[in-house]
């Protein structure tokens, strides 16, 4: 469970890192001015520079995401941090109460995917995918899923 999870996050974290690397070698002239002013991002987009990908995503996110969804994202980020901490602890200090580690870690992972599901289901753009799931229904499902998840975690933690 652990390696996959961290890789996902790595991918998200790695995106900007890779971007700067390629920019430096490929198109230094264009990318240099594009970093400061936000209006230059439009110009950078056409030039296919990798750095524009990151800024695009960021601005897109800030523009289109409602406040509530941002809260959900914050919670998900928090879960990733907690899960990462547990994993690091497991690697550094050993996994002795393996039950406890597993249930703690899977609680964060499980809660993460449930929250992600809630986020997906409540996003306006995905409406067409979920004809039968209203936002209220999504939240009710989320609560039920979380209850089951934590019941199993508590039962497993010893």
């Amino acid at each position: 469970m652990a390696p996959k999870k961290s890789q996902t996050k790595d991918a998200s974290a790695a995106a900007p890192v890779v971007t700067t690397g390629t920019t430096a070698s490929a198109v230094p002239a264009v990318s240099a001015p594009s970093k400061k002013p936000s209006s230059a991002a439009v110009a950078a987009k056409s030039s296919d520079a990798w750095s524009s990908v990151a800024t695009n995503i960021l601005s897109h996110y800030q523009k289109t995401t409602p406040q509530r969804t941002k809260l959900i994202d914050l919670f998900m980020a928090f879960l990733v941090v907690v899960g990462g901490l547990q994993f690091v602890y497991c690697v550094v200090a050993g996994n002795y109460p393996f039950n406890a580690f597993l249930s703690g870690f899977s609680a964060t992972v499980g809660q993460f995917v449930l929250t992600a599901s809630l986020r997906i289901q409540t996003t306006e753009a995905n409406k067409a995918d979920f004809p039968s799931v209203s936002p209220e229904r999504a939240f009710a499902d989320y609560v039920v899923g979380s209850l089951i998840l934590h019941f199993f975690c508590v039962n497993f933690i010893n």
Partner: protein
Amino acid sequence: MAVATATDSSSPMQTLADFGKSKSLRTLLRVLILCFIAGAAVSSRLFSVIRFESIIHEFDPWFNFRATKYLIANGFYDFWDWFDDRTWHPLGRVTGGTLYPGLMVTSETFASCWPPAFSGLTAFAAYLLTNEMTTNTSAGLLAAAFMGITPGYISRSVAGSYDNEAIAIFLLVFTFYLWIRALKLGSVLWGALCALFYGYMVASWGGYAFITCLVPLHAFVLICMGRYSTRLYVSYTTWYALGTLASMQIPFVGFLPVRTSEHMPALGIFGFLQLVAFIYYIRSSLSGAQFKAFLFVGLGAVFGLALLALVAMTSAGYIAPWSGRFYSLWDTGYAKIHIPIIASVSEHQPTAWPAFFFDLNLLIWLFPAGVYLCFQDLKDEHVFVVVYALFGSYFAGVMVRLMLTLTPIVCVAAAMAASQLLSTFLSVKSPVAKDPEQEDATDVSSKKIKQNAGSLRSTNSPYVGVYSFMSKGLVSGIMTIYLLLFVLHCTWVTSNAYSSPSVVLASRMPDGSQHIIDDYREAYQWLRQNTKEDAKIMSWWDYGYQIGGMADRPTLVDNNTWNNTHIATVGKAMSSSEEVSYPIMRQHEVDYVLVVFGGLLGYSGDDINKFLWMVRIAEGIWPDEVSERKFFTPRGEYRVDGEATETMKNSLMYKMSYYNYHTLFPPGQAQDRVRGVRLPDTGPVLNTLDEAFTSENWIIRIYKVKDLDNVGRDHAAAASFDRGHKKKKAIKKRGPRTLRVD
């Protein structure tokens, strides 16, 4: 019979069609038909009770029975911690941690006659699953009927077979139904339900790994086909996160989901889906070409990296490689060489071709047609049918036992094909011929293709209709006959092949009346009444559960087969000469030895026929002391008559089987009816064992292990003295004997 009723709902009779127009009536009819199917499913499983009596069949069920008794007597918490000291003497078995408790917990709350009841539920689950696949409701009813009576499933769920599979197949089908449902709706609730039933399945049967592999495979195929959807993300991640936690609650499974390779596909797809979801999310803010490059490079790299990491972790020992049982599914010769104990079980043999027809009859040729129909209208759930069909067919071909997992999908696919056929040919209305072009359906469709050449042939549905009443009647008549024949076949197979408990044998007297051979129970009853409470019985592991359940005596090995070395010890004792076996038996405090011998009756499932497996398993552990080759004659024959090899004649198993057997016959006429050979006039001599009991038809023979001699002689000398021989040098010739200590 249920089939006939099912087809009635779409019968050509116009009156009935009008009658069945109202919606509430249709629902009523559907419920009635399902009830009838459940009734048929239950009653066809009661053959065994009618033919014989209410008795538990086979081997494994006896353990389940015993475990349930323990659960009822001592409660749930004690059951978890149950250490069974009456099996695997002297090791004992940590039973609570090594069983799938779903069955016992279920049956604690249900009546004793419940495997048939579960078959009714399975039929209902098949109905639901099929309804998810097609809009044609009669397909669901047909699937339920097929599921209810097909012998492939009946073999494991007749009344009296108190076994995990009976309940597991219901859970399997129902879990798949919930999975399809969750995938269609993209609902967390259905995903959670699916996970709960998956957890229940894990608690019931080791075959849960089938679900663990099939669902990720389905998800993976969908992603590869470019059918990723947010619904897939929601349903899969919910199922995995909750289902894995649920499965880890079972002590026997424990940490396996993160430790073994069987569970890695599910985990890998879980991680992969996170990645895919993330990438699809950022897709919305990127231009098309950029995104494509990003997608292929990124996904390919991460997938490769994850695979590499898996391989590295497996070789580094963090993740256990595929266990032998699973590995033998890929390399079918593997088990025979490395783990003979798995290969020795008859259920683990590759399936013979006739078995498919025997177990599934007409369904097996409707099955490919149903799978083909899935391709016509390829939605996510149809991909599931295709994947399951391929996967299931392969496994059913490798192992007889896994026919059970193939059966549900065969029923579903066959029902789809049959209902398609029936609904095409059973409509009363003839299509109205408007244009002369439209009269020939294929002609029209080919013209249409020319018109819109851009679309695929399968996407524009051809105009299908049958005009002549004659051909309608003919095809539907033939189909009905086939269905009736199927019912007849199922009934025949169920009543003749699958309803005989292996504990009680039936034979026909010359006048045609039935004769019951009840040697097993006679012998177990004898053990129960004539031996000490803690007398240890040594027998081959097949009979361990029965001895534990019926005779209530401790055994050395049983059907749990968790300790290969211990089984090999018994195998060695059976296949070695008395001088070697006796110390082994003394060390394990064996009081009685039980062998099954079918020579008199012609009962082929006896120990001499299983003997080579004992030799092989023993040879796996002690290659220096036991050698399979020595049991074959120089010409490579496995013989038990006068030509048998010396090793064979001296082996304990041979001696116990044929001891005193020749006295039953006039001189020179002793015959083994299983092997069909004539036996020598002088039978084997037993020095260290006393014959204690032989059942009516000589099927079970029980020997008592002699105590050490009072005056310190070895047993050969003592026995020879008792027979009236003088102490001769002949005994000395064999030299001093040393006890072999392992």
